[in-house]
């Protein structure tokens, strides 16, 4: 039986939106891997606020992952935006701590900006990205039956899981169960 045109267009929009969400997850996982690279290769241990920024980035990516897994929904975007707000507060707090002229920045700058400034830019850009997605794809389309993830979403899932698990291992090693007081 032939599908009605509106349903076909809806399916295509659904897939395209999932791909855009998977791209966001891969980018965030890449940023987190870059932070790991700085930590391992430049021997710069992350501060407590840096770890909170990583936590917010993982939360942001989880909202996008939920869009890939359950189908796009405004509730999932809201979870990402809440994480973005939290992460922006943390990075702005760290930025303001180091903004005084005689106060040194934390860690080596990357392309002229500190990592916490880059983190703020990531959160601000993510808010803009999610806003555009909400503007273009403005209907929730939750998957009613089980669907297999496409390979790109599976890669995004695996990358984010590995980064999150890596952070668990590192935090246990460096701070045990404490709050990482630097």
């Amino acid at each position, binding site marked *: 039986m032939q599908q009605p045109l509106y349903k076909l267009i809806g399916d295509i929009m659904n897939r395209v939106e999932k791909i855009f969400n998977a791209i966001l997850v891969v980018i965030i996982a890449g940023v987190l891997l870059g932070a790991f690279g700085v930590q391992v290769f430049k021997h710069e241990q992350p501060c*407590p606020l840096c770890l*909170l920024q990583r936590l*917010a980035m993982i939360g942001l990516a989880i909202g996008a992952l939920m869009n890939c*897994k359950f189908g796009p929904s405004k509730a999932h975007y809201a979870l990402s935006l809440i994480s973005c707000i939290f992460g922006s507060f943390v990075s702005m707090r760290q930025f303001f701590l180091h903004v005084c002229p005689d106060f040194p920045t934390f860690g080596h700058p990357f392309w002229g900006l500190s990592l916490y400034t880059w983190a703020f830019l990531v959160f601000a850009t993510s808010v803009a990205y999610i806003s555009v997605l909400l503007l273009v794809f403005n209907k929730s389309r939750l998957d009613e039956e089980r669907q297999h993830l496409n390979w790109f979403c599976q890669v995004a899932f695996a990358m984010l899981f590995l980064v999150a698990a890596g952070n668990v291992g590192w935090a246990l090693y460096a*701070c045990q169960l404490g709050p990482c007081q630097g």
Partner: protein
Amino acid sequence: MAGLFLLMTIVIVMVYFRVRFWSSILLLATIALGWCLLWYHATTPLQINW
């Protein structure tokens, strides 16, 4: 801090196994705990290397 990352990892696993409602609740709870930790670091009299 390790506990917060562990909670996030659990949320990712829950999403993978299609537990939508409780993964959302756990994600919000983790973010709330993150706010608490931010508050702790902002108000503690301990000398913290930021």
